């Protein structure tokens, strides 16, 4: 009744092809942006920023990146953690080598470097497919982590191999380092998320995105109709790694502030991001956000519920939390293998007819 499209007429192709064809959706989207920009920065505190919102925003970028590769181009990758490490170490080297240049440029450059590395490790995808490729990308994961741990140049020869982000400012406000305030950190991440999500949306519905999807659906058939698998797969690896690299750079510089490669960018990170896109929905930008939100929020929620609410010992709560997360993943897959994005789409279908279904 409320959510409907009657009277919402399209008079051109542009309008027909827009991201939010229904007026109500558009309004909701604008409202969300307005809240995110005009309200949240004034109410956000340190706890919410570091426990929930920053990880959500940063993982959203990583999830979009992986979704481009896995969801749109069909190449399963378990090297996300390694590529995030590339972004983190690239931004660290750039920040310390050229302190006078803006951090925003450094983060973008870090994404670019990661894109190059991603293309390099994407080369085997021309020969290797499916699970073999997934496991092959683990080579990137382990090798990169080892490399950053081993070569002292990457961590500026510090005694222990930890990297620490120095303070850098954007428009006079510190966004990295200990002095950065929660709103500043939030806004810089939000800015990247907004631009990158917009970019991803437009890439995936353009020529490139169609090529990726053709490769995903059947690469031989795609090749026959004139999609070059080399450029399509490598561009997917490049774009995906660009996103993932930026996520890694933000994770290290803005969120964590200090990192050790094996711990912060280990294999678990690769799995975590893969979970996000599968739970959220493969091949969906919205799904990347939904998956990231789900997997960032739920553990914090469960933890606070069980230790804070029920007063359980922390170890028991942590173990039960593992069980619940595992069970939720399985239940989700059984209930809706296509993720939250599909659930959302179905809900919208229902809403359109509500309260008078056929």
């Amino acid at each position, binding site marked *: 009744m409320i959510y409907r499209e009657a009277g919402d007429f399209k008079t051109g192709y542009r309008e027909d092809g827009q991201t939010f064809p229904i007026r109500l959706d558009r309004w909701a989207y604008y409202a969300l942006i307005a809240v995110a920009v005009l309200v949240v920065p004034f109410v956000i505190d340190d706890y919410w920023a570091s426990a929930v919102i920053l990880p959500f925003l940063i993982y959203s970028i990583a999830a979009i990146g992986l979704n481009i590769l896995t969801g749109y181009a069909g190449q*399963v990758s378990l090297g996300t953690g390694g590529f995030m490490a590339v972004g983190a170490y690239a931004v660290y080297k750039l920040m310390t080598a050229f302190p006078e240049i803006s951090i925003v440029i450094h983060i973008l450059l870090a994404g670019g470097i990661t894109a190059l590395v991603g293309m390099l490790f994407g080369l*085997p995808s021309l*020969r*290797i*497919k*499916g*699970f*073999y490729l997934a*496991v*092959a990308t*683990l*080579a990137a*994961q*382990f*090798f990169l*982590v*080892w490399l950053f*741990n*081993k070569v002292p140049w990457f961590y500026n020869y510090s005694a222990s191999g930890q990297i620490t982000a120095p303070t850098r400012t954007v428009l006079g406000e510190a966004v990295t380092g200990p002095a950065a305030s929660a709103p500043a950190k939030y806004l810089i991440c939000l800015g990247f998320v907004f631009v990158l999500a917009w970019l991803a949306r437009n890439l995936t519905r353009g020529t490139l995105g169609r090529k990726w999807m053709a490769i995903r659906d*059947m690469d*031989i*058939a795609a090749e*026959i109709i004139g999609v070059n698998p080399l450029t399509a797969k490598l561009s997917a690896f490049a774009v995906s790694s660009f996103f993932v690299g930026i996520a890694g750079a933000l994770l290290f510089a803005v969120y964590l502030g200090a990192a050790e490669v094996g711990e912060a960018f280990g*294999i678990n990170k690769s*799995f975590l991001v*893969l*979970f996000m896109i*599968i739970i959220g929905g*493969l091949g969906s930008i919205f799904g990347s956000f939904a998956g990231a939100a789900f997997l960032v929020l739920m553990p914090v929620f469960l933890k606070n519920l069980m230790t804070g609410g029920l007063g*359980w*010992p922390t*170890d*028991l709560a942590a*173990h*039960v*939390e*593992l*069980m*619940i*997360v*595992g*069970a*939720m*993943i*399985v239940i989700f*897959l*059984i209930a809706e*293998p296509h993720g939250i994005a599909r659930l959302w789409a179905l809900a919208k279908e229902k809403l359109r007819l509500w309260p008078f279904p056929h």
Partner: protein
Amino acid sequence: MDQLFFAAEVFLNGLMTGVMYSLVALGFVLIFKASGVFNYAQGVLALFAALTLVGIQQGQVPFAHLINAIFGTHVESFGWTLPSIAAIALTVLVMIGLAILIETLVLKHLVGQEPIILFMATIGLAYFLEGLGDVMWGADIKTLDVGLPQGISDSVEAVTAEWFGYGFFIDRLDIWATMIAALLVAALVAFSQYTKQGRAMRAVADDHQAALSVGISLRFIWIMVWSIAGFVALVAGIMWGTKSGVQFSLSLIALKALPVLMLGGFTSIPGAIVGGLIIGVGEKLFEFWVGPLVGGATENWFAYVLALLFLVFRPQGLFGEKIIERV
């Protein structure tokens, strides 16, 4: 000359380590062949089996910590110590029960889904089992002792010292592991070649639909395969657990088995064995020769890079079925 002997020693030990990797990889292959599920939870199954074995053997009360936390009681132990054989038998029963549960609660509902969805389901399962293992038996490190010997084999050392003037180091546990793995593989081969259920299992692996149409119960086969994989996991868990104590990190041996699978092919039992041996020897020799030049600790990635390079030339692995694509 000494260098050569040492290389030979590293080679032999690499082979033995390879057997340990193969043990884990075997479980993956069995399940992948029969149900097309890439079972990430295999490593956690090994951990869970080993935890259960120790728990049963030492008479721990399952869920003691949870019960104590909720009811404020102090139950810890039944106060018995079972002989190893009985404990192993009981653990096998638990693993069969687990297989039935996994089939009815998870797999049954996911029939016909894409492989990646099934893969994800097993990751979910891995998380669940990891939590369950901890809640059931506690998270502390447990000593696993089923009477397997450990330490250098004196006879091998003495004999080689006599022959070559250089005493080789072979761990007795590795010798046992090799024998047990050989037995296990022989038993599996015999089972799949000469028993009715084994033939049915191979039929399912070949073609699900055809197998269904001749009256083979898919569900039964799946339960059976997961039970066997659980048993293989138990064997792997005993071997690895004897070495390092039973603890969380045991589940990470799955990561050691993945390159083995890539190299050997996901669908081949001989592939798992040969792949394990190649990876074991390869990573040890690489660490021995190249490791010192690049600063060591190469073993984590070397296996993957080796498998990756190999796959570029042979995308289906060593013994995998040829991938034929049609439009």
